[in-house]
């Protein structure tokens, strides 16, 4: 029980909560030692890197980053769904703020990569991901948001919890795959009739490279402050 957190701040007691014998799980199974399995998985990942690196270094890199990303996601309980949902549901914005920090960090990284290529006169990588924004983006985001709250996870969250062994979300994953497949099939039609009517905006074209990162970080900072204030506001309302 090393991970038992201490009592709530302001809660007073500091000791453990006395629960009745009735509800205390008596038939507690001895937990399996997971270290051998952990080492086996680690060996599997390393062997995967070695094998893939022979054929395609890029694939080996994806294999490594995929595993690392999954590990971080699981250990931090990072959840994009909760980041969007909890501010409304519980007033907690710690995950929303975490997502904003992640966005800020990746923004700086992307600028470094893109500007690096641009400064050397090379084609800027990843420009095919600069796609039009329009009301279709808002509509799609809203639909995805409803779906992820009902199914209990976005794409990465669902994958991570399937890996943890949460059975219900295997169903989510199955229908996520079905939905993605269907979406991919009709994507041409949607692109032609809705998506292509929007305007693609690449911030450095408008504000310049420095301006773009400053504007982006400023927006993220404003959202972070708003999230912080929102949490305090909600918690103050609850304590009345």
């Amino acid at each position, binding site marked *: *029980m090393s*991970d*038992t*957190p201490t*009592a*709530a*701040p*302001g*809660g*007073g*007691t500091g000791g*453990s*909560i006395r*629960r*009745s014998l*009735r*509800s205390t*799980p008596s038939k*507690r*199974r001895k*937990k*399996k030692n*997971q270290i051998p399995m952990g080492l086996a998985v680690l060996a599997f990942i390393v062997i995967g890197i070695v094998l893939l690196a022979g054929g395609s270094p890029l694939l080996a890199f994806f294999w490594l980053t995929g595993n690392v990303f999954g590990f971080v996601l*699981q250990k931090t*309980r990072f*959840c994009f*769904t*909760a980041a969007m*949902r*909890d501010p409304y*549901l*519980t*007033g*907690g914005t*710690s995950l929303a703020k975490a997502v904003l920090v992640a966005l800020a960090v990746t923004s700086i990284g992307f600028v470094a990569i893109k500007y690096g290529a641009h400064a050397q006169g090379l084609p800027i990588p990843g420009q095919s991901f600069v796609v039009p924004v329009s009301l279709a983006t808002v509509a799609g985001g809203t639909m995805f948001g409803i779906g992820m*709250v009902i*199914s*209990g*996870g976005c794409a990465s*969250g669902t994958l991570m*919890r399937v890996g*943890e*062994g*949460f*059975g*219900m*979300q295997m169903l*989510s994953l199955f229908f996520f795959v079905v939905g993605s497949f269907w979406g991919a099939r009709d994507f041409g039609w949607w692109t032609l009739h809705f998506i292509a009517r929007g305007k693609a905006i690449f911030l450095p074209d408008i504000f310049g490279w420095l301006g773009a990162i400053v504007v982006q970080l400023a927006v993220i900072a404003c959202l972070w402050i708003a999230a912080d204030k929102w949490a305090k506001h909600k*918690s103050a309302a*609850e*304590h009345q």
Partner: protein
Amino acid sequence: MAEVELDCMGEACPIPLVKAQKKIEELAVDDILIVHIDHSCAMKNLPEWAREAGHNVEIEEIDDGEWDVIIEKVK
């Protein structure tokens, strides 16, 4: 001092939290609510909410991937 158990096994993220929020309102001060969960996400947001609300919280890992969140209603 009553003790209420809430079975949220197999329920995805927001459901255990919403159920616990509703349940705790029915309880009196010093009552204890025990929520059984097996969703790792609820393991995070359930205690976070309860601490924020000022209750005493403990987490007990019953088995691999199964937890009891014990909430003592303080006020």
